[in-house]
């Protein structure tokens, strides 16, 4: 962890209560505090570092359970291990960085900010995404970006089945193989603007030098969610 001075505030989950740890972190909320916290012995506890709203830096030194860094605003949360389901769910802004793998529904419904996963993300990554950016350096599981409305997902590895099912206006970039595309999700041409967008997302995620040659773009065919007069009897 760099750039935040040498004196982190140490919060130890072993022997300490999760509620007390989260309350300590949230005590910085609605300030411009840049305090650096180190959470020791997370032991897979759920709901770590949730509901933060300050530009603090939180290093979680181990594996996190469900809903880590949920509803994050402005904070930079780094998980040194794996994260359980729903990491950074409903994030509004800030940055969440998982050094290992994440379980399912990473970044679910997130409105803003950046989620970076160094390893793989399991099923439903970016489900119902509403504007955040997600960069996964490994692969993502099935049903990723299901009903995603806005935001971007970049996958340096492969994507599982039913990618982008029922997607709205979110954009997906995948470098590897895609199992298959979900309903109304199609491959789209990479124009200059998309190469630029992809490059800036990779740079933001700390992998600006990654090979971009194989990337393809996927998005909505807009056949499913637009009203068509031929479907009038269905309503």
């Amino acid at each position, binding site marked *: 962890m760099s750039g935040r001075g040498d004196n982190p505030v140490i919060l130890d989950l072993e022997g300490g209560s999760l509620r007390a740890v989260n309350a300590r972190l949230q005590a910085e909320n609605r300030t411009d505090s840049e305090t650096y916290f180190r959470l020791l012995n997370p*032991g*897979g506890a759920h709901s770590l570092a949730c509901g933060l709203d300050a530009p603090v830096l939180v290093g979680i030194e181990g594996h996190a359970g469900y809903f880590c860094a949920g509803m994050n605003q402005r904070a930079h949360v780094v998980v040194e291990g*794996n994260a*359980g*389901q729903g990491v950074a769910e409903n994030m509004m802004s800030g940055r969440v960085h998982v050094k290992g793998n994440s379980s399912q529904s990473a970044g679910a419904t997130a409105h803003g900010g950046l989620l970076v996963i160094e390893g793989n993300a399991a099923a439903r990554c970016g489900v119902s995404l509403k504007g955040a950016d997600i960069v996964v350096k490994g692969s993502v599981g*099935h049903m990723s970006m299901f009903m995603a409305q806005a935001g971007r997902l970049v996958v340096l590895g492969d994507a599982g089945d039913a990618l982008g099912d029922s997607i709205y206006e979110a954009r997906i970039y995948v470098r590897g193989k895609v199992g298959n595309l979900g309903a109304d999700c199609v491959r789209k041409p990479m124009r200059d603007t998309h190469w630029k967008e992809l490059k800036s997302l990779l740079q933001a995620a700390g992998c600006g030098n990654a090979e971009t040659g194989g990337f393809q773009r996927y998005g909505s065919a807009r056949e499913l969610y637009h009203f068509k007069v031929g479907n009038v009897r269905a309503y």
Partner: protein
Amino acid sequence: MCGIVGLFLKREDTRSELGRLFSPMLVEMTSRGPDSAGVAVYRNPSPAECWKLTSFNPDPGFDWDRVAARLSEELQAETVAEPNDTHCVILCDGDPASAVEVIEQSDCTQVMSVGRLVEIYKETGLPRDVVERFGLESMRGSHAVGHTRMATESAVTTAGSHPFSTGPDICLVHNGSLSNHNRLREMLERTQGMRFRTENDTEVAAAYVTHRLQMGRSLHAAFEDCIDALDGFYTFVAATAGGFAVLRDPIACKPALLAETEEYVAFGSEYRALAGLPGIGNAEVWEPEPALVYSWGID
């Protein structure tokens, strides 16, 4: 919900640690299943020609010696009864199917498992209480699987608790719910003559695995057969005398985490169940892929 855990020790010299390592894994999963808890422990091989029948009677003061005497008399068999709270491990060198019939003649008595190694202990109540009642912490052995139950498909009873054993040394625990278990139960009853003890969906899955093993399939292959045969949500952990396997349904609705070191393979519904294991910081920890069978050991 429901929580499941499993621990498979790879090395003989760590077997004295099984109960001590496994008990906190089960207790940690209390919030996923506070209704009842159960474990299958593989330990203390029975002497040659002798079977272990773990039996249950709701009365902790039940006279198991009388059952043993009746077994000795009716089957002309050597029989030893080792009671443990509401359960009793009965060692008997008679025909195991006949032994089950004799044991179950007593009111409310039920055989939970038959095998050379497996012992099953399950009860309603909090996992911590179940662990303490049966002295799980001091049990040594090669592997164990456990379950903390939040009932959805059938009543909160001892018989409806997991693990389910439907064949010699086979056991299965399940997080999820099956949707085609009634038809599959009917098929197994009709074509295989299998007998069911509960209305529980998991018992049907265990019976299906047993059926495939009886057809000569390995535990790994039997789980592969489950992907086509079973409909619904499931994360399964199954064990045989020397094997240990994990399977999640094709859409991976229910959580699962595996960890492996030189010493062990551990399974938990969540990471926190594994967090106390020795060397977990350096273990390979991963989420099993949907519809992919993972197995260890020998069948």
